[in-house]
């Protein structure tokens, strides 16, 4: 790595100022549009194309549809597995399929994703084995996949802490001459956490290629958005850090993919971070352990059913002649197969080795850990003898 100091350019004292200086608007390009970007009506009817926002290629949208359908089936299966006691808990992202799938489709395989616990669908859409994704929730480990192989950080439970990791990783990658982009998922509630702000600020100051993707699903467990912020929209939080921002209809798959594709391109081109807020809705409770009827009006939930992102994309693709009954049935069959395979594999009881408790605390165990490992080993041996 070279550390050549940047040449310092000084303006010649004789340089003339323009006769009529025009100060650029300091917030130019930073503020989001007043209304969320939308490219499809809720019924799938396309809205007029926008010059500033190229529409995604139709092949990408067909693939998006496929992954959204499979993703929704995965989500339903994971919920069912929780009811069967196979998972300790499951935070569903039903209703957020356009966001979950759009985010990973906007990235290259070698980009990095920093997910939260609600991104199980996004991770499976990224191609990570669903059994590995659910390891955390099944309880046989904290992270079932190898983050270095799938370029995906462990699902993050401490809110917003991943925002600064994404900034650091993205800066580190560009520092080492690689054009990797990092995308950090975050929810509306977590934008109140300090690490969201520190992440945005570090990424902006160091021009780190990060996309911060807020899925504003309107509730942080039970607390509504009005208790998180008085800002006109969460996308307005970018301007204070000098980060260009956009808001998008998070249930409009075409708009989500278009806006995120533009954000990723911005970051990859070396312009620094980008903040996207997607307006969406968590159709299920926070997790299976939550009772959303205590804080949400059923009419509100019903209203969001009419904005279903999967039906919307299906209608759009059918309208363009890119999807027919046979193709829809084929995708549905694939989703069923995916769920059946997951069911089968999740029904096998995972094997856990008690002595693995002492692995990977440090690169090499301390003498104290060696001692404790021996104690547990002896306990297990005594138990086994007692059972015999």
């Amino acid at each position, binding site marked *: *790595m070279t*550390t*050549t*100091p940047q040449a310092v350019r000084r303006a010649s004292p004789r340089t003339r100022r323009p006769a009529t200086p025009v100060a650029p608007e300091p917030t130019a390009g930073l503020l989001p549009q007043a209304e969320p970007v939308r490219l499809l009506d809720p019924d799938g009817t396309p809205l007029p194309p926008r010059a500033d926002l190229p529409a995604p290629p139709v092949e990408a949208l067909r693939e998006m549809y496929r992954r959204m359908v499979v993703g929704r089936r995965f989500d339903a299966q994971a919920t069912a597995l929780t009811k069967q006691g196979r998972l300790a808990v499951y935070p569903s992202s039903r209703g957020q399929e356009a966001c979950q799938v759009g985010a990973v489709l906007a990235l290259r395989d070698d980009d990095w994703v920093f997910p939260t616990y609600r991104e199980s669908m996004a991770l499976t859409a990224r191609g990570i084995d669903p059994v590995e994704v659910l390891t955390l929730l099944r309880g046989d*480990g*904290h*992270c079932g996949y*190898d*983050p*270095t*192989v799938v370029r995906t*950080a*462990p699902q993050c439970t*401490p809110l917003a*802490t991943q*925002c*600064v*990791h*994404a*900034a*650091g*990783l*993205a*800066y*580190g*990658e560009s*520092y*080492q001459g690689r054009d990797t982009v*990092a995308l950090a998922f975050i929810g509306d509630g977590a934008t109140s956490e*300090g*690490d969201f702000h*520190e*992440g945005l*600020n*570090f990424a902006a*100051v*160091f021009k780190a290629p990060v996309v911060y993707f807020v899925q504003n699903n309107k509730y942080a467990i039970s607390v509504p958005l009005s208790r998180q912020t008085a800002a006109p929209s969460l996308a307005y939080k970018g301007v204070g850090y000098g980060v260009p921002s956009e808001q998008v209809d998070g249930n409009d798959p075409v708009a989500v993919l278009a806006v995120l594709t533009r954000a990723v391109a911005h970051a990859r081109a070396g312009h620094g971070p980008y903040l996207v807020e997607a307006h969406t809705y968590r159709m299920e409770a926070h997790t299976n352990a939550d009772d959303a009827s205590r804080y949400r009006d059923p009419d509100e939930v019903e209203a969001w059913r009419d904005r279903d992102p999967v039906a919307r994309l299906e209608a759009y693709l059918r309208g363009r002649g890119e999807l027919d009954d046979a193709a829809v049935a084929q995708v549905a069959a694939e989703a069923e197969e995916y769920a059946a395979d997951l069911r089968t594999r999740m029904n096998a009881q995972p094997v856990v080795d008690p002595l693995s408790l002492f*692995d*990977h*605390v*440090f*690169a090499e165990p*301390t*003498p*104290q850990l060696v001692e404790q490992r021996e104690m547990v080993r002896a306990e297990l041996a005594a138990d086994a003898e007692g059972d015999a």
Partner: protein
Amino acid sequence: MATMTMAKALNAALADAMLDDERVLVFGEDVGQLGGVFRITDGLQARFGDKRCFDTPLAEAGIVGFAVGLAMSGLRPVVEMQFDAFAYPAFEQIASHVAKLRNRTRGALSVPMVIRVPYAGGIGGVEHHCDSSEAYYAHTPGLKVVTPATVEDAYSLLREAIADPDPVVFLEPKKLYFASADAQLPARTAPFGRAVVRRPGTDATLVAYGPAVPVALEAAEAAREEGWDLEVVDVRTIVPFDDATVTASVRRTGRCLVVTEAQGFAGVGAEIAARVQERCFHALHAPVLRVAGLDIPYPAPMLEHIHLPGVDRVLDTVARLQWDDRPDPRWLAQGSAA
């Protein structure tokens, strides 16, 4: 052999590590052009450029979280927390991510990094500048916790910390920064996990680390006049802890006093006392005693000398190590209520 300060040795360790390994990045608050408020990073930016030694926004959680990401990308961050108490905003990052990433990912991801923390008191600092925060870190599995008491150890332990595959919280005793000693750099002292006998003795063992080591050594010198020959063990690395050296010393002397500057309740000194008692019970002629800071928020500068364990308090406590085979009168007076 040259006379130098601990601050200079730490600076040399950073420079040598940056020279040897281009993945090493040094950053934090005021560490660039200024060279840090204690000048530990002095000259590094001029020598290595502002891509390798740089200032950050004033946000400790951000600094440590940024370092997590950098370490994930294959770099070796060395971050400075400006003062002990200023590191608290970073505690979530340290406890939930730095300490756990290796374990959470079954070894797939590790985040080797060094978090340098100027710590402890004795410099007349105003509030929030003098905390002994070692117990918070030592209580967090996955962190190595290191604190030098000598100039050569400062160099050697910091080099080892930067090369270590695990995250290291490197606690620098502020009051020792500008204490000088003869040192030959690059020094290579005992590795992590090894305590060192700083002064051999036969009658009792004083166990200390960081800022308490010079206090223990001074007390041991003064104790000669009382007829006690005291051994002083410098723990050096709180994690991993060297039970072997400490217990070997106590078994030899039969008496143990743990000296820490930190407040005593639920502290590292309590852990050491418990470990010694568990391992040396039959060799002990007296209960293991502790001399620690008082269980109070760090006091205002004009009262810190009462808070900090000094030679007199150490010697008074040594006197209670049952030299004439009678129980400590304090315990008798308190009866069963004790």
